[in-house]
C-alpha cells in the first residue's frame, strides 16, 4: 500500500488541442499555423472583431465525443456552449466560449500505473472550448515591460479534461498525463509533438489544506517538476506554522518554480451564461456510431500483444505506450511476412525493436515519428528494419553488424551521409542494405576469409598463442578479437573460436 505521507491530493485540468482538425473550432481558419508568422492565421471571428459570429466545427464535436467514449464517460444528451466572462490580454472577446452545465462528456475513468499498482483516476468531465491567443513576454512574465499577443492559436479547438483529485504524487500525475496523451494519439485527434498541444493546470493540496492552482504547465515533465516544487513549498509553509492559501500560481518553466499570481484581483466571477450566438447540441445520438469506429485503445492492445505475440508485459507496455511504436512493431511483423513468406518471430522482433531500437532512439532524444513517419526519405523505414531483421534471421549478418547499421542510420545527418537509405526504384530494401553492407565491408564473413584471418592472427600474435598454450584460457579471447577486427566484425565470433581451437591444436 502507498502511504501518501503528506496527504497529497492532485487533480489535473488538461487542455488538449484538437490539432488534427483542419480548422479552428468556431471559424474556418487553418490550424497549421505553427511555422507561420504571428497573427497570420486569423479572421474576424478568432480575432474577436466586432460583429463576427461563431459557428461550431462539426468534427470538433465528433472528436470530443470520441475522446469522451475512450475515457469511459457518459455523453450528455443536451449540451450547449456558455460564455465564461473574464478579462485577459490573450482573450480577444473578453470571454471564452466554453461549456458549463452539461459538458459534452462526464463521469469517466482511466486506469494508470500508480505508486502501488493499478490506480483508477476518475474523469470529472471533458468539455469543448476555444483556445485563447499566445502571450509572449520579454524575459519573464513578472518582469516584462509589455506583452506581445499572437492570435494564431486563438480559436483552436480545446478539449478540457478534468480529473477528480485522485492523484497522490507528482509521479502519478505524470503517468496520468502520459496515459492521456497515449489515448488521445490512438484516437487520432491529437498530435502531442506540436507546440502548445497540451497544457495543464494542476490543483494540489497537502494534508487536507487549501489547494493551489498552478497554471501554465506545458509538458509532462513540467507538471512533475511544478508539483514537486509545490509540495515542498506547501510543506514549508505548514512547517513554519503558516496556512496554505487558496490561490492561483504561475509555473515558471525556466526556473522550475511557481509564482503567486495574486494581484489586487478579487475572486473570479465568470458570470457564465449560454452563448446566444450558438444553438444547443443534441448529439448523444451520434455516440453509438462513433463508438463503433473507436480504435483499439492502449490497454487492449497491450493485452493482445502479450497474448498474441508472447512478448513480456514490460515489452508490451513499452511498445503500446506510444502509438507509433506499437504500429511500427506490428507493421514490421506484417511486412516481413509479406516479403519473406514466413512469420518473423515476434519475440525476436520485440527484442530488436523495443529493447534495442527504442533505447537507441531515447538515448539520442529522437522519436520514431521523427525518424519514420514525417520525413519519408529519412532514416529507418519499416522495410529497412525488415531487411536488417531478415538478414539477421538468415544469418547473413551478425548482431554486431546489425547494431552498426542501425546506429549509422540513426546518426546519419539529414540529407547528407552515404548512410542515408535512398532507395532506388526496383531496388529491394534487402538489396539496398546488402549493397551498403558490401560497400562498408560489413557483410558476414565466412569460409576462407575467416580461415585466413585466423591464420594471420595466430602468426601476428605469438605472445597470445604462447599464453594460451601455457594454459591461459583468456588469451584465446584476444585472438578472437583480432580475427573479428580483421573481418570488420563480419565473422561469427562463435565460429571463429572453433576455428582457432582447431588451428591451435
Amino acid at each position, binding site marked *: 500500500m502507498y502511504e501518501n505521507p503528506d496527504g497529497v491530493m492532485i487533480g489535473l485540468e488538461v487542455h488538449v488541442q484538437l490539432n488534427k482538425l483542419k480548422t479552428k473550432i468556431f471559424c474556418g481558419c487553418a490550424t497549421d499555423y505553427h511555422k507561420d508568422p504571428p497573427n497570420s492565421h486569423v479572421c*474576424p471571428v478568432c*480575432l*474577436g*472583431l*466586432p*460583429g*463576427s*459570429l*461563431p*459557428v*461550431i466545427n462539426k468534427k470538433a464535436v465528433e472528436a470530443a465525443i470520441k475522446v469522451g467514449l475512450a475515457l469511459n464517460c457518459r455523453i450528455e444528451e443536451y449540451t450547449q456552449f456558455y*460564455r465564461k*466572462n473574464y*478579462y485577459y*490580454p490573450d482573450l*480577444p*472577446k*473578453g*470571454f471564452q466560449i466554453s461549456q458549463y452545465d452539461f459538458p459534452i462528456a462526464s463521469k469517466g475513468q482511466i486506469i494508470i500505473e500508480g505508486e502501488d499498482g493499478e490506480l483508477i483516476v476518475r474523469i470529472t468531465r471533458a468539455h469543448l472550448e476555444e483556445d485563447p491567443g499566445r502571450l509572449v513576454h520579454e524575459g519573464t512574465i513578472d518582469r516584462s515591460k*509589455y*506583452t506581445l*499577443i499572437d492570435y494564431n492559436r486563438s480559436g483552436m479547438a480545446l478539449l478540457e479534461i478534468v480529473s477528480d483529485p485522485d492523484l497522490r504524487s507528482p509521479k502519478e500525475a505524470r503517468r496520468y498525463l502520459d496515459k492521456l496523451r497515449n489515448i488521445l494519439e490512438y484516437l487520432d485527434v491529437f498530435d502531442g509533438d506540436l507546440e502548445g498541444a497540451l497544457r495543464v493546470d494542476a490543483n494540489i493540496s497537502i494534508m487536507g489544506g487549501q489547494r493551489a492552482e498552478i497554471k501554465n504547465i506545458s509538458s509532462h515533465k513540467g507538471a512533475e517538476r511544478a508539483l514537486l516544487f509545490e509540495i515542498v513549498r506547501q510543506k514549508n509553509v505548514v512547517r513554519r506554522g503558516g496556512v496554505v492559501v487558496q490561490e492561483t500560481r504561475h509555473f515558471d518553466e525556466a526556473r522550475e518554480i511557481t509564482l503567486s499570481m495574486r*494581484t*489586487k*484581483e478579487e475572486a473570479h*466571477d465568470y*458570470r457564465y*451564461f449560454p452563448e*446566444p*450566438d*450558438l*444553438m444547443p447540441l443534441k448529439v448523444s445520438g451520434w455516440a453509438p456510431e462513433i463508438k463503433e469506429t473507436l480504435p483499439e485503445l492502449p490497454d487492449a492492445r497491450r493485452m493482445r500483444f502479450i497474448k498474441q505475440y508472447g512478448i513480456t508485459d514490460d515489452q508490451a507496455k513499452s511498445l503500446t505506450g506510444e502509438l507509433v511504436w506499437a504500429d511500427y512493431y506490428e507493421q514490421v511483423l506484417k511486412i516481413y511476412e509479406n516479403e519473406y513468406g514466413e512469420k518473423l518471430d515476434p519475440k525476436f522482433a520485440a527484442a530488436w525493436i523495443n529493447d534495442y531500437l527504442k533505447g537507441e532512439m531515447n538515448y539520442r532524444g529522437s522519436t520514431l515519428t521523427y525518424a519514420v513517419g514525417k520525413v519519408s526519405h529519412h532514416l529507418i523505414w519499416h522495410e529497412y528494419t525488415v531487411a536488417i531483421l531478415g538478414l539477421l534471421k538468415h544469418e547473413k549478418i551478425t548482431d554486431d553488424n546489425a547494431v552498426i547499421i542501425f546506429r549509422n542510420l540513426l546518426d546519419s545527418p539529414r540529407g547528407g551521409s552515404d548512410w542515408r537509405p535512398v532507395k532506388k526504384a526496383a531496388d529491394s530494401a534487402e538489396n539496398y542494405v546488402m549493397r551498403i553492407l558490401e560497400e562498408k565491408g560489413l557483410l558476414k564473413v565466412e569460409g576462407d576469409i575467416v580461415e585466413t584471418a585466423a591464420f594471420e592472427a595466430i602468426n601476428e600474435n605469438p605472445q597470445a598463442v604462447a599464453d594460451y598454450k601455457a594454459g591461459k584460457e583468456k588469451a584465446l579471447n584476444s585472438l578472437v578479437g583480432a580475427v573479428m577486427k580483421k573481418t570488420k566484425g563480419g565473422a561469427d565470433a562463435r565460429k571463429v573460436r572453433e576455428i582457432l581451437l582447431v588451428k591451435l591444436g
Partner: protein
Amino acid sequence: MWAGINELMERIHASSSEEVVSEYFERIESSKLNAFITLSKESALLRAREIDSKAHDGSLAGIPVAIKDNISTKGTLTTCGSRILTGYVPPYDAHVIEKLKGAGAVIIGKTNMDEFAMGTSTETSFFGAARNPWDLERVPGGSSGGSAAAVAGGEVPIALGSDTGGSVRCPASFCGVVGLKPTYGVVSRYGLVSYANSLEQIGPFATNVRDVAALFDVIAGYDARDSTSVQREMNYSSELRNEVSGLRIGIPEEYFGEGTDENVEKAVRNGIHTLEDLGADLAEVKMPHTKYALSAYYIIAMSEASSNLARFDGMRYGLRTDDSDWHTTFSQVRAAGFGDEVKRRILLGTYALSAGYHDKYYLKALRVRTLIKQDFERAFRDVDVLITPTMPYPAFRLGEKIDDPLSLYLADVDTVPINLAGVPSISVPCGFSQGLPIGMQIIGRHFDEAAILRAAYTFEENTDFHTRRPGGI
C-alpha cells in the same frame, strides 16, 4: 426629394446614378439633422459611376442607401456611436452589406445612433444627438435615429437600422417613416456589432411599405456564418397586395394602457378601424405578461451587452490610453471610451449575471421571456396579426428624458415584447399629434412578414399619412 425606389430607378435610367447620388449628398451637406457619422462621398460616387458604366444590374442598382453605424463596412469607419471605436475600420463586410453591394446599391454613409444601440433617442451618441426632421428640438427616436431621420428628411431613400428592443420601429414612428423588425433569424447578424444577440435583427427603413419590402428582399436570407440564421427563401415584394379581407386582427388591450398618449391611442384605433372597413376582422386578445416584458427585456439585453462589450479593451482596435499594468489599462481605456448609459448598462448587466444575483435577475428574466413568448403563441392561434401603438407617445424633446434612464426605458414598453418573442413587426405612419408623426405597430407570427407587410401596404394604399413630409428642414 423623398422619391421612392421606382421613381429613382426611372431617374437613374434617364440620367445617372452619379447625378442622383450627388443630389443626396448636396442635401446631406446642408442638413441640420446630424443623421450621419461618416459620409462616404468619394467611394459612393465612384461606385455610382461604376454602376452607370454597367447595365444598372440588380434590384437596387444605383440607389443610395444609408447604413446604421453598427453594421460593419469594409474600409469605412464603423463607430457604433462610441468613442471607444475611434478609428476602427473593419477589414470585412457584414452579410447585409455584401447583399446590398450585390444588388447594386450605393452606400452613402454611416448613420448616427445611440452608443452601441443603447437608447431610444440617439442622444447617447458620442457624435452628438441626431434631430427629428419634424421638429429639430425633438429626438428622432432611437437607437437607429440617424437612419430614420435621414429617410424622413429626404437625405436618403432607404436605410438600414438594427432593432434590439424597438430601435428600428421607435425612430420610424417618431420620424413618420416605415420600419421593419424581421423575425429573429431571417436577416444574418454577421457583421452587426452585437448589443444583445438573442434579441436583435437588422431591419429596413423607407418612406413606404413597397420600398421597405424591396430592401428587405435584398438583405433577408440564409447565411452560414450566423448560426441563428434560418433557411427560408421568400420574395416579400411579390406578397404585397391591397387586400385584407378576412385578415384577423388582434388588439391586445395591454398595449393601450396607462402612459399611452390620448392622440396616439386615437390614431392607432382609427388605423385599426380603417383596416376593419377594408374587410379585416377584429378580435380582442389577452397578453397578460406584457407588463413584465420591459424588465425582462432590459435584464436580458444588459446581461448580454455586458459580455458583448467586454472585447473593447484597446488592444486590437479602437481607443487606447497610456499603458500601465493590463488591469489598469483595460479599465482606463473602457472608462474613457464608453459613455454613461453604456457604462450603466454594463454595470447592471454584470450585476444581473453575477454570483448570487444570476437566478434572481438573469434566469428569472428568461423564464418570464418564456411566458411572453407563450402570450404571443396563444394570441396567434386566434388572429393573424396584432396591432398596437409603436410608441406610447410622439417624439419627446431633446434632453427631456436623458437624465432619467428609467423613464427612457419606459418608452420601449410596446416594442420590447416583440423582440423577446422573436416575431416580426412593422411600424407605419398612422396619424399626427401636434404636427408630430404617430406610428402603428403591426405584429406577425414567426416568419410571417408577408402578412404584416400586406396589412401595412393595404393601410398605406388607403391612407395618406405616409405621403406627408416635414416642412422647414
